[in-house]
């Protein structure tokens, strides 16, 4: 009998319903991680221009000094800040901290995600502050 495959695929990372913020941080964490890896490869590629002599190096560097590049640098930095701070939150929770302990459940249930939510909010505030400071440093100072 024919079946219809209802697996969500990558769409399911981005949106799958009215869940808490944590499920969307999962997606952001993946994307920022992939972005950082992509940047690393690009970085290695670009800086290796130096092998072809000083002139080639100067030329690539002048290519990389427009305002668009500055914005790109900021996005990269934002990705790194998010990935690092959220990664710390994940390490804390994945080692069983800040998520509560097993016990009898009474309705309405308070799940482990709810228990770590305060930690998540603190981490998000830290990320926002770091983004603000680095934004001021990048574009204004």
């Amino acid at each position, binding site marked *: *009998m*024919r*079946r*219809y*495959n*209802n*697996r*969500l*695929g*990558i*769409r*399911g*990372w981005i949106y*799958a*319903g*009215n*869940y*808490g913020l*944590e*499920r969307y*941080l*999962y*997606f952001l*964490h993946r994307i920022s991680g992939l972005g950082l890896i992509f940047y690393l490869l690009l970085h290695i590629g670009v800086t290796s221009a130096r092998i072809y002599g000083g002139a080639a190096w100067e030329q690539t560097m002048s290519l990389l000094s427009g305002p668009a590049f500055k914005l790109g640098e900021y996005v990269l930095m934002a990705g790194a800040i998010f990935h690092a701070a959220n990664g710390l939150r*994940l390490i804390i*929770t*994945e*080692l*069983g901290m800040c*998520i*509560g302990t*097993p*016990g*009898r*459940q009474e*309705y309405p*249930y308070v*799940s*482990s*995600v*709810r228990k*770590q939510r305060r930690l998540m909010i603190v981490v998000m505030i830290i990320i926002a502050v770091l983004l603000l400071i680095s934004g001021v440093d990048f574009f204004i100072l």
Partner: protein
Amino acid sequence: MANFRIQRYDPEKDSRPYFQTYEVPVEQGMSILDCLFYIKERLDATLSFRASCRMGICGSCAMYINGLPRLACETQATSLATDTIEVRPLPNYEIIKDLVVDLSPLFEKHQRVRPWIIPYELEELDRPTKEYVQSPAELEKYLQFAYCLKCGLCLAACPTMATDNEFIGPQALAQAFRYNSDTRDGGDAERIAVVDTLHGLWRCHMAGACAEVCPKGVDPALAIQLMKREAVFGKKKERARLVDPRCGVTPLPGIPKAPEPTVKRSEGKR
């Protein structure tokens, strides 16, 4: 009156699912399952869905209702606070017909983690001479996870499940932890060999969606993180004491053979 937008799919006729709308006179106290029965009995007998207990015990009526996987029988229609109610089959499974999905991957993965007590003394299992004693505190280490219905909502919610077919999934991982945490059980090593793998424990990144949707407060996310902690730091397993029963036990001389199973186990099939 509420408008029910229901996803339909008939494998014999349709190449892809489509939506059909029904009007249901919703009253206070009607669950989504009641509404589906209303549709089936009075408006459209061809609508297929699965249900049995109507009281949140069998786990048959799991569906995707207004943006979240939920049990239809435990969801009050008025609690959704809208006149448009959308009901779809659970994501991340194959649709058999309309709202009925094939849950066999869930059961197969559940079976893979050996969800039963593997005692230290096999002889004691076959011919019990003593009693296991377990304190209330020891019971509470796993009781929460023992309430799992196998409804499959958590797999529908999990973002890893959305792309990784092979992921063991929150339900089975929680059950691995439930048995590993039981003081009567000595099967840790066998289960760790199944879950401490590429598509096991470490594919979970604490999105927490499983814990949010679980209708029984099982909290698979909690079980998985605690199991990761044990995998990293190791654990000292308490062992249930065996004590002589107060009135003594006379083991039966010949324990009769179990009757032939009435349902054939489909080995090899998935």
